[in-house]
């Protein structure tokens, strides 16, 4: 249910792999040549497919055929980009989330490093690719039978957040850089969207009926818990990040307790309100009575 809601809210790009995120700060237009229209799986946002041979149909078919045969099967740009970014991740622990890492990655794949120049918001492309990959891995872990049955909701949330954060351990030395890249105003829309999807996915997995609170509040709260834990992890030196997991468990418990506390506070406020209301009413009644008994005798008011 939440996945469909997420899809509605966050746009049609919610297929978990190979998303094309190209928020274009300047208006640019992309053209896809005729021979690739049929083979493309997802069309990039805002493209126009052009048929250059429209004026001559028979020649077009021939041309198209000849073109397909004479040229070796070429990878789509998205696939190529994904390959380069995947290879670049291996260089991140050493070189950071930088162009150098992507240049090294592209060399590994056998493509000219010039291609890095065409990635929109270069370093951000690498970080966003990593975030997408992690989300995909999380979903795969969940789908391939993660045991959550015996756990209470707060423990389930803890476990999922822990699994997700553990994926970042190899890159922990450079993770602050990734966070600062995600915090750039240009990159904020995309990084926000990715985190929203992550949080939504976790809640979806934990299951319905976890609480009565509003959908947005749940996600905001979990977003806060996740970010706090992520930042805590940056400076955690304990073996196997034990302190981080303890911190996480506490925060999740607080969040769940917060719900109960809010509920209790609501009831408390209602009771107070009722009590005050009654006493006020009693007071008014008393006043009215006194006035009516006295009213017969005094005239002034």
């Amino acid at each position, binding site marked *: 249910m939440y996945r469909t809601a997420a899809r509605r809210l966050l746009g049609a790009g919610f297929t978990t792999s190979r998303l094309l995120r190209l928020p274009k700060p*300047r*208006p*640019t*237009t*992309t*053209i*896809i*040549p005729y021979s*690739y229209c049929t083979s493309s799986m997802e069309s990039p946002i805002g493209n126009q497919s*052009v048929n*250059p041979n429209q004026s001559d149909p028979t020649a077009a078919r021939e041309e198209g055929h000849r073109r397909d045969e004479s*040229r070796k099967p*070429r*990878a*789509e*740009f998205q696939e*190529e980009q994904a390959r380069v970014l995947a290879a670049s991740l291996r260089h991140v622990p050493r*070189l950071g989330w*930088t*162009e*150098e890492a992507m*240049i*090294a990655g*592209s*060399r590994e794949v*056998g*493509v*000219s*490093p*010039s*291609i*890095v*120049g*065409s990635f929109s918001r*270069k370093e951000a492309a690498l970080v966003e690719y990593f975030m997408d990959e992690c989300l995909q891995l999380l979903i795969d872990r969940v789908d391939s039978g993660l045991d959550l049955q015996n756990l209470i909701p707060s423990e389930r949330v803890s476990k999922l957040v822990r699994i997700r954060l553990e994926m970042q351990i190899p890159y922990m030395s450079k993770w602050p850089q990734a966070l600062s890249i995600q915090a750039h105003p240009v990159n904020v829309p995309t990084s926000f969207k990715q985190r929203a999807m992550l949080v939504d996915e976790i809640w979806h997995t934990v299951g319905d009926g976890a609480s009565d609170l509003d959908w947005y509040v749940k996600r905001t709260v979990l977003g806060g818990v996740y970010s706090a834990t992520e930042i805590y992890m940056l400076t955690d030196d304990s073996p196997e990040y034990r302190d981080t997991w303890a911190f996480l468990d506490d925060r999740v418990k607080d969040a769940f307790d917060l719900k109960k506390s809010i509920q209790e506070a609501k009831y408390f406020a209602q009771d107070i309100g009722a009590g005050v209301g009654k006493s006020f009413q009693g007071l008014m009644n008393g006043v009215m009575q006194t006035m009516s008994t006295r009213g017969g005798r005094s005239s002034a008011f």
Partner: protein
Amino acid sequence: MALRSISRRFGSRVLSYRSSSLASLHSHATSFGFQQVKEEEKSKLVGNVFTNVASSYDIMNDVMSGGLHRLWKERLVGKLSPFAGMKHLDVAGGTGDVAFRIFDAVNSVKRRALRKVDEDSLEETQIYVCDINPNMLNVGKQRAAERGLGDNKSLVWVEGDAEALSFDDNSMDGYTIAFGIRNVTHIEKALAEAYRVLKRGGRFLCLELSHVDIPVFKDVYDLYSFKVIPNLGELIAGDRESYQYLVESVRRFPPQEKFATMIADAGFEKVEYENLVGGVVAIHSAIKL
């Protein structure tokens, strides 16, 4: 041969800029032959034009664009994102504007980061500047010497034709052509050559004067082009004809979308264009995959 269209224009003063309605690919190469000129004479005429223009080329660029051409070239090089160890080809880049910017981009900031790069990318950066006119190249070499780059091995000045490059297949990481492609007779040939010399993953970037569609601004721009620029040419370079040719050739060059289609037809992928100053200038970019 490139620039054949300039010599044709010498015979036809009657060229109207409205003739840009002829959108077919070969129109600006063959459609305006008021005078037939022998090939040897053509090349001489063409050679003369650019020989005359070469020495005041940069000043005229500054005056005509109000200095904006520098920003446009900065943007072009920014988009290219040069890296150390790159093999780059700048075509029709005679006086070296784009080449110098690429050189600076690679050598000043990125040198510091170079130490982070793998040891096996110790290849030197090579920037080839190719131009069909030797006088333009000479001006470029002079400017290089003035900057102290006269002996630098990274900058290589090559005389050559955009339609028939002397470079090997799959040898270049980047290809740029700034304000040169509209002078080429057969644009598709130049694009095909660009495709040939680029490596896999290599980028093609073209900076060119293009078409303006914005209503009021279009008229202002037309007025400026046809009234002001030829007069400036006369005043500063002493050469009204070449600049008259320039503004007419801009109108005859295919509009942004059409040109993008031509690039895609040459086999490039991820073809994009970006309009600057409302379409006065457009940067087309594409990747060979």
